[in-house]
């Protein structure tokens, strides 16, 4: 378990009124700050917002954008939407998995790089699409995808 910067968690909690409705934005900020949701942080959120730990955990586990294990510093996200699927997202996945030695959803051992899928980015005209830390790269081929790494 990583050592958690408690003062950072404290600052995130202080930035909003301690009301249950801010649960999700606070979790998003903690995710952004730590690239995952550390256990200590979740318990601190539960305590501050007076939301049961079980509900905090349930909300945290519901969204794909939130994670209990650290995501990669760089994040490659392959779109698996219908348009991307038809235009060869499968081949991109295969190409990237082979190149990185990672399976979809995994993070490299040093924590530098993560490979993920998403169900649709809404950029179907650019299919197939991969984002790197949020930057969109469209009309990819397995060869061009390798250059993103």
């Amino acid at each position: 378990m990583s050592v958690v910067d408690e003062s950072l968690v404290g600052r995130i909690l202080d930035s909003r009124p301690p009301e249950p409705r801010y649960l999700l934005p606070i979790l998003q900020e903690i995710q952004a700050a730590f690239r995952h949701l550390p256990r200590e942080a979740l318990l601190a959120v539960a305590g501050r917002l007076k939301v049961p730990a079980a509900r905090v955990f349930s909300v945290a586990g519901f969204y794909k954008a939130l994670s209990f294990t650290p995501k990669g510093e760089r994040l490659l996200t392959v779109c698996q939407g219908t348009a991307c699927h038809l235009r060869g997202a499968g081949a991109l996945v295969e190409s990237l998995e082979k190149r990185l030695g990672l399976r979809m959803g995994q993070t490299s051992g040093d924590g530098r790089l993560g490979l993920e899928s998403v169900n649709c980015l809404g950029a179907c005209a650019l299919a197939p699409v991969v984002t790197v830390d949020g930057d969109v790269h469209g009309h990819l081929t397995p060869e061009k995808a390798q250059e993103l790494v």
Partner: protein
Amino acid sequence: MNHTHRKVTGTIDGRKFEAPHGATLLDTAKGLGLTIPTLCHHPGLPPDGNCRLCLVESGGRLLASCMYPLRSDGEAFLTASPLALEARAFVLRLLLARAPNDAYLLGLAGELGVGADPRLTDGADGCIRCGRCVRACRAAGSEAIALVGRGRERKVAGPFFEAPIDCVGCAACARACPTGHIAYSEEPRSIWGRDFDLEPCPLCGRPMGTPEELRRAGVENPVCPACRRREYSKSLMGLPEASFPAP
């Protein structure tokens, strides 16, 4: 006229009803002596409408009767139309895929002539994810467990998939579970991988709950329900001790 006193009329299976405005279709049907099967519904808990077993038809539409409030006159509902029965049979197959050995579901399945679909029973654990345990826990005053995850991964769990820290061992969840999925021991009390002490009633000595559960209830100097009734009756009637049978 006050909203709450208004009456709503309509028919269920051709029988006329008059119900308070906002009453649920399920309760009203029960009042007529009709039986609509339910699983996630519990009369003491807020309805959730997620097991879909109580579906009935109204004008070609399917409604979850446990959640449907009667608000307008002249609606006609059918609890056993071909559409309603077909929907119920479909739902039953999916529920059986989660809890293939549940006696209540098997009984209903027998009536409707459906069985568990062997293609779907992979990973069946006896839990139908109806959340009745979660609602019972919340209603009892804790919220130690929750439904976590999505889709096939969804399950009832404590925070971090560990023994729930906020659990007081009252076993309300296990008693509310319609399929008996939550394993627990009454005496000695053990549930969700945690063991609890049982506090004896100071009058009769029989176990009346876990210390954590009694603290949550916030009653000072608690006694067990049987002794409380006896003490209260005595105080009302002022009768001597010998008039009351020993507990």
